[in-house]
């Protein structure tokens, strides 16, 4: 009917279509090619894929690592979210940012940090542990199944934390109290009540786990070969870069496996969302009060601090140490520590420019991405299921392909005529926004779920059109959730190395590119210095934002009166 298309909807739909096109078009340019020869569909790449050496092992290893780390992240992330949102173990800003801090270290630096710590013989952590245990190697080995899963997990936890926190904020705390009164202790309550009650959030988190898990590249590239593990993202990059011309067809076919898994999880998640069994009940009169952990409070706080120490202080410390030593030394000679690498980093104009560009890109892309996602979330939630799912899929699926493939697609699509964006920051903006839409929309979906429909209805009744309602009501109310999403996006984009490897250049250098370069030169000292610098810079942005989001989220102001 006539009124169904307001200017806001038109603009929003165009935006959704643009985002869809931005994701699909560059991809089509790369992907279609191997499958079309002489205008005919050619399934040879699929055949080649099935003939890949050790396909079974590859899939098995990948499944175990992605699945294992996904599960672990779900458990840890949910537990942290629960402790922070629902219990008196919360320690202000500290618990808010604990899961985020290890994330501030770009994955490549994190992986190196962990190999510095956990290598069998000369890992710093192993040396420390052996002071007590004796022996010449071990006790831990980061180049192993569990090591890889562990490092993956650290990078997955923030997503779960963010989404589950939002979910918990939305459910009635009385459900947990009821469980306590019914005779269940805190752990049983967490397991039997809190987690199942936020199943939709867990579903969303699970989807993101699969999505980001398959996508992680730097970590397995550095840690997996030595563990004898064959990981899909690494194999795909090998296929793309081992020979020229790249075996795009096979790489894409392998990625289809990923897409299949993502589709299944996505389907399961939408089913979950639709089920009435997760509908919030009652809830009126509920006031969020922290659950008293009693004698559990100390241990839980201890665990949180231990997690922070283990996941952020240790790898950061290792990187600082290596940058002060100049190289990875098996024995730390404290007298020889020097600031050479730090000075080199700070005086390197290329690094400075790259850092500025990266932070700028992070801010701009995270803002664009999150705002666009907010519009799409709000529209998708309001529009029919079929359209909604289609838009959702168009935005969410393309980035499941290797970022390398997509980056090449962006060059083909935007570098030359008619856009001429090659070598500019704009092509990076487009690519970053498109590649990170899944994270952005997951965050904004969660945030949109927190705005009671009456609040927007009241605005419409007051005479405000959809655009004004979105700007003045929906967006401010979604702000805490969106800011959390923004922080994650900002961090990933500021430290991105996957798309940058192809898209960054002389005029649009970014810090991830710089890190790769330093890594290729084998200069761990400078790599450590750059990473620590980047981490400091991003924390200066992220911590205040998290603090602000938290303050708004925790104040009674942001709680809708329902």
């Amino acid at each position, binding site marked *: 009917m006539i009124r169904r298309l307001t200017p806001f909807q038109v603009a929003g739909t165009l935006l959704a279509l643009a985002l869809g096109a931005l994701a699909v078009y560059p991809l089509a340019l790369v992907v279609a090619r191997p499958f079309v020869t002489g205008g005919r569909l050619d399934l040879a790449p699929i055949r080649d894929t099935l003939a890949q050496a050790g396909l079974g092992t590859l899939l098995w290893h990948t499944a175990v690592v992605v699945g294992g780390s996904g599960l672990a992240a779900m458990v840890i992330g949910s537990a942290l979210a629960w402790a922070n949102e629902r219990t008196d173990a919360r320690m202000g800003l500290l618990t808010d940012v604990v899961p985020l801090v290890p994330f501030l270290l770009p994955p490549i630096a994190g992986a190196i940090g962990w190999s510095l710590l956990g290598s069998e013989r000369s890992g710093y952590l192993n040396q420390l542990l052996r002071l007590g245990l004796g022996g010449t190697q071990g006790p831990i080995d980061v180049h192993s199944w569990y090591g890889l899963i562990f490092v993956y997990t650290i990078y997955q936890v923030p997503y779960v934390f963010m989404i589950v926190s939002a979910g918990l904020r939305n459910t009635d705390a009385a459900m947990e109290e009821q469980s306590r009164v019914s005779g269940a202790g805190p752990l049983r309550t967490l397991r039997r009540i809190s987690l199942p009650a936020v199943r939709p959030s867990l579903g969303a988190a699970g989807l993101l786990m699969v999505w980001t898990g398959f996508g992680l590249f730097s970590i397995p590239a550095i840690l997996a*070969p030595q563990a004898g593990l064959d990981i899909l993202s690494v194999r795909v990059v090998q296929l793309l*870069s081992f020979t020229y*011309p790249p075996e795009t067809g096979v790489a894409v076919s392998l990625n289809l496996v990923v897409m299949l898994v993502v589709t299944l999880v996505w389907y399961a998640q939408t089913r979950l969302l639709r089920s009435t069994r997760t509908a919030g009940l009652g809830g009126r009169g509920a006031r969020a009060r922290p659950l008293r952990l009693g004698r559990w409070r100390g241990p839980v706080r201890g665990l949180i601090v231990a997690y922070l120490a283990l996941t952020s202080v240790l790898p950061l410390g290792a990187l600082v140490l290596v940058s002060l030593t100049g190289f990875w030394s098996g024995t730390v000679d404290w007298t020889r520590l020097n600031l050479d690498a730090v000075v080199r980093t700070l005086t390197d104009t290329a690094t400075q420019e790259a850092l500025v560009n990266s932070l700028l890109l992070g801010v701009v892309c995270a803002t664009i991405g999150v705002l666009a996602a907010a519009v799409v979330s709000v529209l998708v939630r309001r529009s029919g299921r079929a359209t909604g799912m289609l838009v959702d899929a168009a935005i969410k699926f393309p980035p499941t392909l290797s970022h390398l493939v997509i980056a090449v697609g962006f060059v083909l699509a935007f570098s030359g005529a008619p856009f001429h964006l090659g070598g500019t920051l704009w092509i990076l903006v487009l690519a970053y926004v498109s590649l990170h839409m899944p994270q952005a929309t997951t965050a904004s979906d969660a945030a949109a779920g927190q705005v009671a429909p009456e609040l927007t209805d009241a605005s419409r009744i007051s005479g405000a059109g959809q655009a004004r309602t979105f700007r003045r009501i929906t967006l401010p109310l979604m702000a805490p959730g969106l800011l959390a999403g923004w922080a994650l996006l900002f961090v990933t984009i500021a430290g991105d190395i996957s798309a940058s490897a192809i898209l960054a250049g*002389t005029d649009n250098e970014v810090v991830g*590119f710089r890190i790769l370069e330093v*890594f290729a*030169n084998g200069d761990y000292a400078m790599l450590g210095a750059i990473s620590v610098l980047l981490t400091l810079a991003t924390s200066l942005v992220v911590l205040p934002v998290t603090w602000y989001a938290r303050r708004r989220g925790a104040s009674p102001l942001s709680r809708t009166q329902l």
Partner: protein
Amino acid sequence: AGCGSSGTGGGASVPADASPALRTLIEAAQKEGELVWYSVPAENIAKAVSDDFTAKYGIKVKFIRLTSSDLAQRFAAEAESGRPAADLFVGSYTPFVPEALGKGWTVKLAEANIPDFPGGFPDKYLLPDAGTAVVQVQPTGIAVNTQQGGDTIKDWQDILDPKWKGKIILVDPRTSAAYTPFWNLIVKEYGEEYLTRLKAQQPVVASGAAPATQQLAAGEAAIVMPGVQSIADDLKGKGAPVGFVQPPASTGPEIVPGLAAKAAHPNAARLFVHYLMSAEGNRKLNAVPGSGSPLDPATLPARYTFNRELSGTPAERITSLLGLT
């Protein structure tokens, strides 16, 4: 990879001894005023060369350093989009190089009106079919940990000594096609049996030469094979217990320039190639130990074999003999 740029060297002018053709080229290049290139040689080398070029001709140079496969991907994609960002690349000789020429993304050096080409450049380093020339070789060797007695190693066979069992880091040959000629050299010298015996030494697999050499410095192992001299020397300079051994028989990445067909600064690019192939420029390019200059046999290992002569054992066979799949 990273980027670097060199400022305009103040007051550089046309050298007096230049031939008329060169003179014209220099003037045209200076009019363009700028040059962008992609480099596989390490950053310090690329920077030194760029700075020198700038100082000499007053042309601003920007470069980014890339791995050879990233370079291929990127150059190809940009060329295909019709707007190459680089005026030329200086990268490893891989099948990409003739392919790029075949697609018209690059032009043959011989047909590029480079003054005095090829000049006094040794014939065996010219690759007329691919339209380019090898301006640098990076012979592969062995990086060793001196504290663990790795400096007793002199040649490839020494690695098979049982005492090194479990103390060898093998740089994963699956990460780059550039390793294939190297293993072919080993097979050529010692037969496939070498690979099986190496496998029995239970080497640790590293994802690249850089992390491998760092691990070596830390004492995780005694040997990195194949090792890269520039990385090892860098660590050694920082006080790490690392050394580099150059066995007589060797091969390694061969670096060639490729002129972009639709370059934004075609004359500057030609001048840069001219510079790289000149005695002076080539010396600058190969000033660091670990890179061999075609113009200076002393910088090369005793028995250097060209990549093109090393084929026969395909990459899959190598990885499976090494027990990597």
